[in-house]
């Protein structure tokens, strides 16, 4: 009975979504205030019903209700509670429910934190969100209902994919989805603005914090996913350009471009059409990401759910969303005004350059991801486009991005004086050049120019931003001056600096781990010692252990360097009871300057094992950099100017304190 209640609330949510899409929109054209005002309550209603639905599914998992097909497939009585909960979104149907629920949560956040927005705008934004929601709820109810029952109920459930039984993966999808879905807000704002024909600085100002929050979620989601792949899959890598990784990376690239473009539109009124186009693209790519992961068109590690019929629905949905919004765009674009004039050397130019590079990069990733599909469809032969190709594209674009970043952050709007520029950046340039050349010395990389390039660029990004901060604080006194600046509206500035420094940290990480990482495949008997990058790994053999829902072989290693004990590592190889595929649990001794990483291969008889040993210098910097980028974004949205607008809105908002969002526009 209870699962039917979940099904029923899902249908109710669909009814509310349809009302939310139609009524406020009509009201905004007929100027019927009550119709427009209804948008907020409708958003709340939809959210409440979807939350109930999600809670009921969770309840079914916790209570092992295997009469629900989805629970029977992914739940299991032996599953620890944490993974029972994460199993809710561990497969297709449930992850869609989470999607829809988050969409409703974002809508509610808009409803709650938009008291200072014109009602007309709010109602149109929420109407667009409602339309997106209709698509997802219909999709769920027609092709992928998580509440479908089976009779007789199986005695025991299948199991959550063992690969997903990990704390990191329990929160990775929600974060990623918050990012994906969050771009729907930027999308809705853009569409609403197109409808009203009012694309101005205030529109950009409203959608900026929302876009940044979505971007922060997406950034953290990707970082977490990459980290998970590193420690869980036992292959020592952190990015494989898998189609599903690309599916999250493309919206990220476009979202990054969008954030920067919105800044220009807000401050200078320029690039309006471009910004709108980016907002449409970012969300379209998020939808495409869902499509790529869920339709099964691409063979990939991550496609845990594959079903062509669903693919057709998502494809149609994509066509409607992308086609419809582009149609609206081409209809309205000619009426968008051009914005202010700027010189060739100005912040606008550099940001435009950065935008184009990011867009080009996203286009390349799209090309590489879809090329095998296109070739197959056009019968040009089956091909693969894998990491060697993508790595080359990465090398082709990112150095320019890093170069521009240093210049762009320092330049002025409208007109930047080249001579002033040279003066400011001369020192940073020389330091970076020296640093790059220094890393080419025999003791470091012995002339490996990639290391020189990477280290030089990282130093360039870091030093140019430090020069920037120094110039800003020139007339302020010491730390107190900085703190005052930080508190009084400087947060978005320092957020930008922090995020950009994150990029520098990231570059250091990938440069060093790609060029100095060591990997050794060895066969070891108990008592054997293997050396890698100066570390001695002593193998003490393998013992059998058992976990709640698996049996495992656990190896034991003592690692020492120059006779001193460094770490004890215990990698595992698990066989889960239900899904019997073996899973490796790598053992990692992590450090800021290096990771030592062991994973178990195969038993070779007589207590011997084949093993993989890795030495990964500075690999943590990759995720640390991503984390700093996210932190920078958070700093930026907590800037005072957004808080004041929230305080203003809070006076009139009776519901604001109950809503989940962080900030408002």
């Amino acid at each position, binding site marked *: 009975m209870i699962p039917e209640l979940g099904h029923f609330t899902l249908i109710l949510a669909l009814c509310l979504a349809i009302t939310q899409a139609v009524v406020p929109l009509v009201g905004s054209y007929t100027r019927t205030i009550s119709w427009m005002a209804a948008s907020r309550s409708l958003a709340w209603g939809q959210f409440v019903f979807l939350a109930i639905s999600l809670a009921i599914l969770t309840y079914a998992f916790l209570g092992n209700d295997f009469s629900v097909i989805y629970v029977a497939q992914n739940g299991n009585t032996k599953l620890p509670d944490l993974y029972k909960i994460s199993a809710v979104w561990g497969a297709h149907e449930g992850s869609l429910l989470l999607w829809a629920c988050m969409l409703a949560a974002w809508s509610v956040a808009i409803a709650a934190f938009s008291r200072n927005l014109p009602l007309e705008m709010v109602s149109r934004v929420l109407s667009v969100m409602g339309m997106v929601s209709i698509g997802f709820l219909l999709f769920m109810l027609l092709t992928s209902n998580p509440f479908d029952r089976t009779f007789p109920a199986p005695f025991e459930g299948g199991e959550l994919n063992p690969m997903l039984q990990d704390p990191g993966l329990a929160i990775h999808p929600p974060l990623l989805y918050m990012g994906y879905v969050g771009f729907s807000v930027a999308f809705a704002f853009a569409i609403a603005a197109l409808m009203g024909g009012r694309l*101005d*600085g*205030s529109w950009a*100002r409203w959608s900026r914090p929302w876009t940044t929050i979505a971007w922060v979620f997406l950034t953290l989601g990707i970082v977490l996913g990459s980290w998970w792949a590193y420690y869980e899959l*036992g*292959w020592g*890598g952190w*990015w494989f350009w*898998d189609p599903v990784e690309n599916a999250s990376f493309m919206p990220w690239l476009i979202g990054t471009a969008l954030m920067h473009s919105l800044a220009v539109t807000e*401050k200078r*009124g*320029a690039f309006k059409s471009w910004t709108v186009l980016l907002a449409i693209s970012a969300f379209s790519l998020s939808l495409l990401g869902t499509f790529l992961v869920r339709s099964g068109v691409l*063979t990939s*590690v991550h*496609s845990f759910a594959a079903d062509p019929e669903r693919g057709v629905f998502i494809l149609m949905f994509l066509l409607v969303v992308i086609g419809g919004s582009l149609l609206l765009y081409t209809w309205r674009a000619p009426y968008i005004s051009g*914005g*202010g004039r*700027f010189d*060739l050397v100005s912040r606008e130019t550099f940001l*435009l*350059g950065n935008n*184009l590079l990011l867009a*080009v990069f996203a286009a*390349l990733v799209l*090309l*590489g991801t879809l*090329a095998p599909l296109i*070739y197959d469809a056009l019968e*040009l*032969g*089956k*091909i*693969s486009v*894998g*990491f*060697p*190709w993508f*790595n080359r*594209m990465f*090398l*082709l674009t990112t150095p320019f991005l890093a170069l521009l970043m240093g210049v762009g952050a320092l330049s*002025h*709007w409208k007109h930047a004086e080249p001579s002033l520029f040279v003066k400011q950046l001369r020192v940073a340039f020389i330091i970076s050049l020296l640093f790059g050349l220094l890393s080419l010395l025999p003791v470091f990389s012995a002339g490996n120019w990639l290391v020189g390039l990477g280290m030089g660029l990282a130093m360039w990004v870091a030093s140019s931003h430090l020069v920037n901060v120094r110039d800003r604080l020139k007339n302020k006194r010491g730390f107190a001056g900085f703190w005052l600046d930080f508190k009084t*509206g*400087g947060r*978005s*500035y320092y957020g930008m600096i922090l995020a950009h420094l994150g990029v520098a940290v990231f570059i250091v990480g990938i440069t060093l781990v*790609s*060029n100095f990482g060591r990997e050794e*495949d*060895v*066969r070891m008997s108990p008592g054997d010692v293997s050396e890698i990058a100066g570390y001695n790994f002593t193998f003490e053999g393998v013992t059998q252990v058992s976990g709640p829902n698996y049996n495992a072989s656990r190896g034991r290693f003592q690692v020492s360097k120059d006779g001193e004990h460094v770490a004890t590592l215990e990698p595992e190889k698990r066989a889960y009871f239900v899904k019997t595929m073996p899973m490796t649990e*790598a053992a990692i001794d992590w450090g800021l300057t290096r990771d030592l990483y062991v994973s*178990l291969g*195969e038993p070779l008889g007589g207590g011997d094992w*084949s093993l*993989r040993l*890795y030495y990964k210098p500075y690999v943590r910097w990759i995720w640390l950099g991503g984390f700093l980028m996210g932190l920078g974004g958070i700093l930026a949205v907590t800037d*005072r*100017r957004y808080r004041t607008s929230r305080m203003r809105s809070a006076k009139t908002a009776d519901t604001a304190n109950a809503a989940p969002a962080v900030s408002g526009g």
Partner: protein
Amino acid sequence: MRTFFLTLMFLLILPSSHASTLAEYTFDEPGKAEDFRTVTEEMRCLVCQNESLAGSNAELAVDLRNEIYDMMKAGRNKDEVIDFMVSRYGDFVLYRPPLKPSTYPIWFGPLIVFLIGGVVLFRILKRKSLTRETKLSTDEQHRLDDLLEQSTDPRDNNQ
């Protein structure tokens, strides 16, 4: 030039996939082991979901690894092995698409995308430096002032 690109790629190769290991494959000739690793890492395990031959534990992958090992042990070089694999399984097996007329879009398409980006940049910049400063309408200015009134961010006041 060719060696230049090859080294470039070698340096960036990310070791791939699940923990199968190559410990059993040893060579007497120096450099051969490295070649073996490169070849198997840049080839797709045909029955897996995006795993390389080097990393996969699937039966077919193990067989192919052994076959490649035997070939290289018998003195065939990297290119010969790649040719053999492509003749048997097609280009699909290669993570790095080969350069030939049908793959020109993949290898030269990016240059065109870059070119388009450059042209767009150039055109916008040219148009921008020619247009005159546009003014906000009074209505727009009022609304903007209203929104900006409480801000103390120095960048709002036209940095």
